[in-house]
């Protein structure tokens, strides 16, 4: 088990962003979490990378528990995760190479090993020719590929992708989803939050639906038919 939510609730003031969530993710699994805007998808993600801690219940990720997480352990947990955001969140003053190298550099990897890994990954992602470019010089699809490369560079246990196709056109979105599926096939657990679960072919992933902070059965979810 790489992620486990045990009866997790999260309140902002009195407003329930998540309520009594129970969720398990196995190693190498592909989980798609869908639901409308404001359903709590991003909040659920924040609990996985422990940017937020639950108001009640326990989150366990890659062996770290929200009940006992110390300040020193937080960076160690995050090094086991790769995170991709809808708005890419690349560092604008760094080149593609430096953005991708960042997780290895903060973990104290030797420059030689960083260079080897980053070059190999950029080649794999067909971004080698762009390694000296700055994010503003890239297309949206290229920026998202760089963000995925940065998320994958340190061999994470779990890849979290929060609406990664939200800012991309359908063709580029399809390619990004294919890339996520390929990453999953290599053994990395992937959690994808999306408005549109139809992007992922049936049978490839497990689907879950969030509605107003509750995980609901897909068939009982009112919005399912409208997707």
């Amino acid at each position: 088990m790489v992620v486990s939510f045990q009866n997790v609730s999260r309140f902002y003031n009195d407003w329930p962003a998540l309520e009594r969530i129970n969720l398990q993710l196995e190693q190498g699994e592909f989980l798609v979490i869908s639901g409308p805007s404001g359903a709590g998808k991003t909040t659920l993600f924040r609990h996985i990378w422990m940017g937020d801690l639950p108001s009640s219940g326990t989150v366990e990720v890659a062996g770290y528990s929200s009940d006992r997480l110390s300040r020193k352990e937080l960076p160690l947990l995050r090094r086991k995760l790769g995170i991709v955001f809808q708005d890419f969140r690349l560092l604008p003053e760094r080149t593609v190479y430096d953005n991708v190298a960042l997780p290895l550099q903060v973990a104290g990897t030797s420059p030689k090993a960083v260079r080897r890994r980053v070059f190999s990954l950029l080649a794999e992602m067909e971004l080698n020719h762009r390694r000296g470019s700055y994010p503003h010089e890239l297309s949206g699809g290229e920026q998202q590929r760089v963000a995925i490369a940065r998320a994958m560079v340190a061999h994470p246990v779990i890849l979290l992708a929060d609406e990664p196709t939200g800012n991309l056109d359908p063709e580029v979105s399809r390619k990004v989803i294919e890339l996520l599926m390929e990453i999953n096939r290599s053994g990395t657990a992937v959690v994808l939050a999306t408005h549109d679960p139809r992007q992922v072919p049936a049978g490839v992933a497990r689907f879950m639906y969030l509605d107003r902070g509750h995980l609901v059965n897909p068939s009982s979810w009112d919005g399912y038919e409208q997707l």
Partner: protein
Amino acid sequence: MNIRGKLATFLITLLMVSLSFMVFDIFLVVSWNLGTVLRNEQENVGIEIFLKDTVSETDAVNLADLVSEMEGVRSVYYVSPQEAEAIFRADMPEQADLLALLGPQFHLPASIQVTLHPEYRTSERVGGVARTVSGMDGVDDVIYGKEYLPGLTRAVDILEKLVILAGLVLAVSLSLVVANTVRLAIAKRALTVQIMSIVGAPGWFVRMPFIGEGLVTGTAGSAGSLLLTGAVSWMLSSSVPHQFLPGDWIALVLVLGAGSGAAGSWIGMRSGVPKPRR
């Protein structure tokens, strides 16, 4: 933020730090010069013991030896009547004829000039030495600047306290201004801090570059303020004679600049590094 934007932010921050520190530098220059004037005045604080005409030169020298052994006395110098007359003629040549008018029997009194150790140059302590001396045989009169010395002592005392107090207030407020300026510059790079934190950078790894940047900004800003103040000082030097700051005061300004810059970054980073919210 692009490179040009970053450079502009850095230069604006640097200018703000420099101008803030310039206020402090000017205060220091004024204090230093005022202090120098008062210190020079205090240097001249001493006692002049006028001797009775009946005192022989041998007795006068013995008296001078006695005074030289008193607590607080640094040196004594016996001025004979002849030397006194020579000094009078040299100092006031236009009044020299007066001596001729007073006749050959008149002579200026012999005296002993006493200088004191610096800590004895206060009104109270000089007065104490003067009172003891005035009771000695052969002493006609003792002069020690009774009128101005209490005022001078008070002025030096007040200036010292004022420099320390105002210096502290200025240093604290200046540090806060610099700290806030650096903090705002850092807030513009919140994304960098957030991303570094999300990819697993430990707190020190995120903070160090920013604290280094604050250190450089503070030092460069205070150095810039010294250059600006130096330029103003140079321009005014012909109309208002004064001295610029001594080396150790310049070092103090630079250390304060570096410290406040680093503190600003540290304060900024305390609120900048996201922590898990419960």
